[in-house]
């Protein structure tokens, strides 16, 4: 008796796929004995086509069920199998078998009785000479791996017969076994359903085979198995299903005692794998990773049901299938192949900067030499002070505590958000962990070369000419706002200026790689942290870049996330106070400066000076130094404006727009004063805005110079010479150390207090400063004195006094008066040990001197205080009853509470993710998302466009969506019998984060618009 073969055809959509499938069925040499059509939520087209095919049964399902469920529904209408030879042929609407396919499959059943499941050679629908799938196996840790993966069919696999598993499309299953095994596991709806069935069949003592002679064309439209295709959403869904399937199988296959252990490892593994996904630049796969872990962990009775089913049918041990698993050496070989493919893809994509070839080395040398000349007095110093510079806290723990939400250890102290700048300082201080304050010396010494290099690299994205790059780097490094900030000791402005160049460089590359985008997001966060006044301008620039970035928007859209994570607690607090403008306050020690006029701003001088030119020309009355100075800056401005006639109009417009934004920021800053120190309100530093404006000018000038055919070097050097001449007096002032910044000791309090701080790190000094209007400023300093990292804009910008501050004022006012007040209240309330009265400056107002006299006389006459004497910092007294480790001086236990933990964890996660993502391990893993035209015309473009465009059109790029074997870095944990209980993290198909297919199809028309001719 011939075996009865029932073909089950699962149909969702009608159309060409179905038509071809039906036609192929019709032309089978060995026709199926019955055809059951399962319409799962099918459209009218499909109904019509199915009706025309007149199947034996039609099963209508109103829901869109999985392949396994649909087959199960069809099986219900079938009679019990009459013999062992009866078989089911599982077809989908997009499986078109070759005419002899069924004959070959049935022949296998007949010749080998032990074969229970036979699978055909699945070939790609559109390219029948390529193998889409041909058997499947598991690694020793249980990861599902296709045996053959998108290969040209040259008969190279035709010797294959016994396999561990199959893909579900067009497999022939013995009907009896199907019933016995209960069909596909309902917990595996899309991925690994047939693999699991095959494994169970093998454990039940049957064989599973592929039949090379049976060819089926398969479109992978999602009815059987996962949808194929490189679209990001499809890839993510497939990854997620694969991961969920793998985890489910792990719980099902594992020995019962280890199931809870596996269950517990899911979340830690998800974390580890997320880290890895970040490192391989596939952040889009992370949500699926976690979703898979959670859904599998809380899948209810599915795992027990599957385990029962497996146990019921199992006849042989796991060792029986061990030889069919993918062997480690084969896995290693595949890994090597994948790495090789990545390398091949990365080739030609890395941009050749030609650092030495275009004079980058010389620029570095020149800027380093200039830095040494300017800061020669700083070489060998252990600390730098003056202006807004203070030492950093000694000890990384304190440094990082000051960077996190919680206790703000300034003045009387309070619980609140940290300035993001404190985080930047913590990073800086951690570099020289043995002496954090030394990091500031390094920052000052390296600022000039670092800035020059940033601008050089940013310019390298716009031009290949060494001379233009050099001009850009030097004009940027000798920008007036930068030199003034260096001389005035404004760490925030200096860091912001250094980072802006690098930010531009990273932002240019953000479209091409996740690593660059993540780097840009970190630099964006650091820049805004160092100069919050830049935030509005940078956010506008980001929004514009997002709008014009086209396909690269995915990588740009998350750019502000790290900055937001850092600043959000601060934003919430300031907005809660009704003082959102205070968010713009310059972080660090507030330093007052004269508010510059618009003219000075337009020339780039941020401190209300004329760059020393007024002194320079003091003796020459018939030269207006302002006009002379303007004439020196003018060439740069003119060159920058000329960029509008350059071919790359978009780059020019963006750069000039940045310049305009920066200038607007500076003008806005000159009208704002949100922080206060003592009685003085502190104007926002306009230099940060001017740095941004300068960056725009430099980039626009680069665009303009790059477009020139002749004389570009000459014009560039004229602009550079003008700028250098303009900053010459400023530079001379720095070189001769006639500026606020100077080498400084690592303390801001007298040595006597410093010695005390050796034993009691919280020793508290009340610092009294007489002010010009006869008032008194009272602050508390702990340990060796105020540090830069403990400063808080929350404290500087508060418009009201806290109860603690009022109490401090009360105590200080009484200490500075003849008073019946109990002076020991200072010890009780704040743990004060010392009182330091700052000496009023030599040219102080009479009122300040009078206040100093009054305070001194009152403190002198106070029996509770013991005069220590005159110090370099002022007159010092010690409380007679001062306590060591005074309770009131300690930081309250658990300051910040759960919010501190929550906020810190969120910030660490976000920044950690950005950091991992920024590590450039992704070369070759990710695709360039820019369209060709943009690559060459946008600011983000540049010389690299040409080679990349070529590389992209190659098939290599298209194979990216293919699964890549991944390192299985963890050793197997469990013993032999149940090899399925794998440890992690092995990976599934190499995730592709990109939502979009390759740009190949549309690159041709776009190339037309490539004006640069590159």
């Amino acid at each position, binding site marked *: 008796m011939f075996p009865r073969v029932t073909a089950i055809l699962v149909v969702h959509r009608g159309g060409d796929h179905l038509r071809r499938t039906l036609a192929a069925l019709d032309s089978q040499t060995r026709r199926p004995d019955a055809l059951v059509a399962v319409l799962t939520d099918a459209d009218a087209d499909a109904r019509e086509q199915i009706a025309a095919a007149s199947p034996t049964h039609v099963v209508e399902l109103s829901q869109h069920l999985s392949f396994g469920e649909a087959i199960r529904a069809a099986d219900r209408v079938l009679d019990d199998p009459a013999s062992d030879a009866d078989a089911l042929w599982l077809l989908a609407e997009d499986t078109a078998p070759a005419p002899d396919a069924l004959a070959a499959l049935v022949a296998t059943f007949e010749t080998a009785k032990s074969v229970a499941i036979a699978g055909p050679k699945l070939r790609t629908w559109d390219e029948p000479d390529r193998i889409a799938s041909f058997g499947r196996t598991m690694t020793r840790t249980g990861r599902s791996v296709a045996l053959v993966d998108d290969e040209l069919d040259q008969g190279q696999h035709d010797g294959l017969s016994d396999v561990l598993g199959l893909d579900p499309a067009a497999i022939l299953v013995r009907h009896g076994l199907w019933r016995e095994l209960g069909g596909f596991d309902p917990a595996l709806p899309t991925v690994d359903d047939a693999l699991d069935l095959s494994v169970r069949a093998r454990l039940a003592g049957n064989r599973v085979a592929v039949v090379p002679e049976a060819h089926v064309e398969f479109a992978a439209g999602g009815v059987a198995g996962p949808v194929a295709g490189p679209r990001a959403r499809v890839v993510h869904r497939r990854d997620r299903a694969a991961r969920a399937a793998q985890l489910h199988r792990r719980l099902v296959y594992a020995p019962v005692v280890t199931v809870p252990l596996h269950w517990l490892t899911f979340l830690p593994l998800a974390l580890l794998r997320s880290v890895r996904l970040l490192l391989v630049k596939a952040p889009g796969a992370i949500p699926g990773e976690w979703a898979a872990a959670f859904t599998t962990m809380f899948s209810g009775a599915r795992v027990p049901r599957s385990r029962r089913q497996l146990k019921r049918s199992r006849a042989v041990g796991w060792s029986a299938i061990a030889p069919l698993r993918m062997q480690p050496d084969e896995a290693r070989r595949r890994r090597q192949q994948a790495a090789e493919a990545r390398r091949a893809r990365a080739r030609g994509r890395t941009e050749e900067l030609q650092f030495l070839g275009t004079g980058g080395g010389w620029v570095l040398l020149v800027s380093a030499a200039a830095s040494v000349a300017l800061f020669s007095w700083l070489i060998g110093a252990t600390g730098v002070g003056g202006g807004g510079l203070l030492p950093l806290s000694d000890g990384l723990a304190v440094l990082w505590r000051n960077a996190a939400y919680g206790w703000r250890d300034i003045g009387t102290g309070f619980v609140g958000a940290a300035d993001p700048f404190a985080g930047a300082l913590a990073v800086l201080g951690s570099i020289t962990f043995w002496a954090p304050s030394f990091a500031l010396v390094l920052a000052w010494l390296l600022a000039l070369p670092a800035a020059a290099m940033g601008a050089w690299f940013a310019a390298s994205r716009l031009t290949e000419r060494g001379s233009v790059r050099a001009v850009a780097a030097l004009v940027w490094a000798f920008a007036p706002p930068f030199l003034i900030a260096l001389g005035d000791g404004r760490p925030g402005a200096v860091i912001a200026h250094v980072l802006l160049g690098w930010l531009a460089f990273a932002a240019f590359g953000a479209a091409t790689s996740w690593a660059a985008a993540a780097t840009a997001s970190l630099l964006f966060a650091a820049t805004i942290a160092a100069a919050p006044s830049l935030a509005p301008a940078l956010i506008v620039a980001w929004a514009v870049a997002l709008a014009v970035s086209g396909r690269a928007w995915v990588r740009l859209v998350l750019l502000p996330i790290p900055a937001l994570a850092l600043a959000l607690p601060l934003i919430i607090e300031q907005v809660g106070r009704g003082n959102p403008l205070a968010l713009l306050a310059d972080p660090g020690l507030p330093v007052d400066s004269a508010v510059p006029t618009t003219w000075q701003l337009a020339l780039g001088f941020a401190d209300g000076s004329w760059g020393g030119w007024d002194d320079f020309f003091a003796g020459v009355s018939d030269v207006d130094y302002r006009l002379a100075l303007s004439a020196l800056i003018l060439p740069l401005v003119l060159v920058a404006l000329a960029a509008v006639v350059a071919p790359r109009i978009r780059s020019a417009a963006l750069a000039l727009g940045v310049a305009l934004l920066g200038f607007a920021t500076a003008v806005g800053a000159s009208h704002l004063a949100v922080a206060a120190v003592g009685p003085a309100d502190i104007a926002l530093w306009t230099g940060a805005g001017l740095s941004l404006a300068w960056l725009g000018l430099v980039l626009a000038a680069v665009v303009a110079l790059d477009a020139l055919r002749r004389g570009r070097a000459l014009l560039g050097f004229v602009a550079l010479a003008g700028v250098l001449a303009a900053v010459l007096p400023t530079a001379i002032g720095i070189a001769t150390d006639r500026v606020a910044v100077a080498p400084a000791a690592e303390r801001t309090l007298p040595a006597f207090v410093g010695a005390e701080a050796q034993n009691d790190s919280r020793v508290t000094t009340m610092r009294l400063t007489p002010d010009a209007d006869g008032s008194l400023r009272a602050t508390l300093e702990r340990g060796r004195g105020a540090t830069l990292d403990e400063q808080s804009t929350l404290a500087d910008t508060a418009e009201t*006094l806290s109860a603690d501050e*009022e109490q401090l004022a009360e105590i200080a006012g009484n200490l500075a008066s003849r008073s*019946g007040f109990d002076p020991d209240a200072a010890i009780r309330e704040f743990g004060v040990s010392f009182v330091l009265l700052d000496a009023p400056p030599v040219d102080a107002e009479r009122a300040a001197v009078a206040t100093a006299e009054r305070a001194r006389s009152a403190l002198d006459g106070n029996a509770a205080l013991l005069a220590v004497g005159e110090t370099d910092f002022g007159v010092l007294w010690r409380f007679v009853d001062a306590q060591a480790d005074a309770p009131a001086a300690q930081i309250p236990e658990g300051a910040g509470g759960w919010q501190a933990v929550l906020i810190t964890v969120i910030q660490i996660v976000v920044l950690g993710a950005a950091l991992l993502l920024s590590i450039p391990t992704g070369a070759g893993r990710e695709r360039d998302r820019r369209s060709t035209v943009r690559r060459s015309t946008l600011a983000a473009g540049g010389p690299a466009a040409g080679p990349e465009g070529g590389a992209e059109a190659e098939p290599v790029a298209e194979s990216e969506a293919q699964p890549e074997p991944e390192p299985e870095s963890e050793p197997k944990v469990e013993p032999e019998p149940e090899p399925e209980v794998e440890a992690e993290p092995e990976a599934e198909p190499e995730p592709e984060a990109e939502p979009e297919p390759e740009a190949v199809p549309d690159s041709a028309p776009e190339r037309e618009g490539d004006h640069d001719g590159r």
Partner: protein
Amino acid sequence: MADKLTLARTAVRIGARGLAVLAAAGIAVGAVAAAALVPWPEHRTEAPSVVVQPAETGQLRVCPGPLLSIGDDPAAATTASSVGSADVTSGAVPTDADVTETPLAAPDNSRADADGPPLALTTEPGAVDAGMLAGAQSQTVTREGLSGFAAASCTEAVAESWLVGGATDVGRTTLVLLANPTAVAATVDLRVIGETGRVDAPSALGIIVPPSSQRVLSLAGLAPNLVSPVVHVTSTGGAIAASLEHSVVEGLTPAGVELVGPTALPAPTQVIPGFVVPSHGGVAPADDHAEGDGFPAVRLLATGQEPVQVSVGVVPDTGGSGSTVDVTLEPGLVTDVPLGELDAGEYTIRLDGDGPFVAAARATTGVPEAQTDPDGADPEASVDLAWTTATMPLIDTAIVAVPRGPSPVLHLANPGGDEIEVRYAVDGEERSITIQGGDAASVDVDAQSVVELSGVAGVHATVTFSGDQALASFAVQPPGPLDTPIRVYPR
């Protein structure tokens, strides 16, 4: 044809480029102009602060204590010892407030046990307002080597005071009395400036005055042979109430004694009210050879680094124009300026300079020449000496203690432009007196009484005593600034 087309295209392109550059330049200029010309809104934060009213504290005044004589004990020629005891009058407002008299230790006075120590007058915290405690002392001595009448107010202890008066040339003895009423030891630096400049006296620096005690130093030991010393007292640690005891012996005859309190702090304008000239006489201001102290004079010292031009106006309290003397003060050199021939009477001396200086005026009774009379019994020859110091303007209320002494008079000078109505209570009887701007007035008060003044903001006041062989004065000073409210910025 093609050439023309190309030419036209080139022209259009150049034109378009020119327009683009012009537009960009226009935007740039427009941006700068908008920044400069548009009155953008400003936001300047207001620094929060607290005005702290110091907690109430007890008022404290220190009286210099009995007059001292040096060298009375032949065995200890440099030791000071008191001669008799001083008579202290004190009072406070409200009158029922307790005034505690605490004796200070006087280790330098060998007879302190017998004659009584210097006294510190204190009130309980909050019992009286600042400045509403007053004390004064007086003493008459007639001893061989020391005779005359001296009166002094009990003053606040301060960190810095200027003592203008005294002399250490032949026949003159000047003692510096340093009282530290506080609970903290004071380290006192005395800087003595004379007519030849600053006197280098290392032993005058770093004098320790223990808490609640008085130290006495002979100025001659620090700076001998000075005709016109000025002593600048600064202290760290405890505060000091400083005064000078200036006594004169002409030949062998004692010719007066005075206790000189601190004068007003250096300022470009000084007022010396209630300068009493007992008898007609004097020396012309231009007289370079005036010696001795038998003529009215002012002692001036420019305390800054620059020379100071001072115009010294001597105006009789009875009205009239008075006289004006212009002097130039070299910085760091003390100048005694004779005030010319003055009629007997009461004067207000106004000094206007173009830089900070300190000042005090000196007068004597009797005719100094008579002292050369071998009898020495002529009442005319009996002289006394008085220093009248510059005063600070009073705050709205004040209280004056008048000790025992001959015909005490309270002098009030109103150097301002506005008329002031001063109310005062003598013996519980309220009276008032109106002082025109620029005028002065005097009120006879009872000895051993307390006078309460109100409405005296801006008024300068001095109490004088004058009688046969007696002349003395002390200044009525406002309370120090130490317990006024202060603005504190706690961040």
